[in-house]
């Protein structure tokens, strides 16, 4: 089955992509770039990195922009999916949705209306088990945004590894954050994945942080042989 993967550049969408590659054929990544920083559906601090990730994976990219108004961005998503159907013949969509009924409901409805399959391989997965598998299977994901107490500025740009996962687990137990960041507590960017043919190297970046909110923005990056 030919599938398109909705890709924000973060760990969940790219892990879901990896699962889809294991089971089916991924024909393209689909990216919706929102100009609205408050977008419920699509905003991530480094969505501009998705084209480089697609190149690293050797997978074509279908990308559209949206102003990010709440319901209009859904029609922009449907437009992106239709482009992927027309351009790559996809029969279904894959998302990295973990717990968000809001996102899942809307994407499932779009797929129903377009007569497409919809797969969410991380849906209600055990969060700790998933994070462990992400690390152990060779994903290199860094934290590119923090939006909650008790994250301080040292988290910006930090790799998700066993040590940081142990600290995230403490935060989860003490402060109630979701371990995966599904509640919007943090955002991630994937620099390498088992299915990437090349890895991403960051040459220039900038970070801003104030009152438990901060963003790590990649300004320049390139691909490097693995």
């Amino acid at each position: 089955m030919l599938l398109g993967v909705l890709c924000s550049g973060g760990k969940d969408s790219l892990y879901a992509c990896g699962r889809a590659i294991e089971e089916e054929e991924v024909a393209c990544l689909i990216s919706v770039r929102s100009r609205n920083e408050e977008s419920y559906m699509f905003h991530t601090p480094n969505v501009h990195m998705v084209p480089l990730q697609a190149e690293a994976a050797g997978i074509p990219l279908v990308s559209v922009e949206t102003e990010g108004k709440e319901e209009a961005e859904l029609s922009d998503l449907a437009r992106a999916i239709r482009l992927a159907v027309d351009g790559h013949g996809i029969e279904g969509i894959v998302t990295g949705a973990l717990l968000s009924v809001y996102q899942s409901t809307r994407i499932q409805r779009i797929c129903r209306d377009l007569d497409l399959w919809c797969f969410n391989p991380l849906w209600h997965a055990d969060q700790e088990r998933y994070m462990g598998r992400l690390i152990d299977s060779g994903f290199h994901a860094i934290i590119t945004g923090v939006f909650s107490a008790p994250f301080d500025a040292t988290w910006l740009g930090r790799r998700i590894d066993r040590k940081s996962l142990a600290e995230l687990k403490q935060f989860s137990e003490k402060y109630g954050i979701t371990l995966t960041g599904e509640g919007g507590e943090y955002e991630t960017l994937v620099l390498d994945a088992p299915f990437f043919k090349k890895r991403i190297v960051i040459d220039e970046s900038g970070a801003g942080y104030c009152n438990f909110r901060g963003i790590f923005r990649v300004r320049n990056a390139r691909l490097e042989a693995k």
Partner: protein
Amino acid sequence: MILLVDLGYRPDSLPRDEFVNPVARIVEGAGISWRYRHYSGFNKEELPGICGIILCGTALKDNGFLEHPERFTCLLESPVPVLGICAGMQVLCQVFDGVVQEGSEIGMTNIRVCRPDPILPDRDSFQAYELHSRACDPPPGWITLAVSDAYVQAVRHPGRPYFGVMFHPEVRNEHVVEGFLGICRKKP
């Protein structure tokens, strides 16, 4: 031991991640062991040593299981408690001569309890996550436990511990699965 039956289009395919594994997590959380079986390998040989069967849901477009009713005929004779979730309720409905027809709901939906039952919340109504493209008219004699504005949402067999729910209890209604597991534990 609970038998989790995968109704997805292929053994260990993407629907297993989404519809079987979350149920397995609830079963594990209740301290009960489980075994996985795709419906293509489901038969009465599976039943010894099993205290309950959960027929899990599958993707919205995945209706291939309905083309193989012969796979599920052992349910006609089994004394083991059964919970059919969404696609699983459609299987129960088909096996026991109910009607499965077009009917879609997606997203959080208000469910009204018509008849209180240990597997349902102890309230007049509750919110539940729906993801189905087919709906059921219950088999003759089965008891309707709950409905939405559009469709029957929960049913039970008049004499056996067989239950069907059209909503997905693994999303925000885990207690429905836990209630079923409680029935499995009590069954001699």
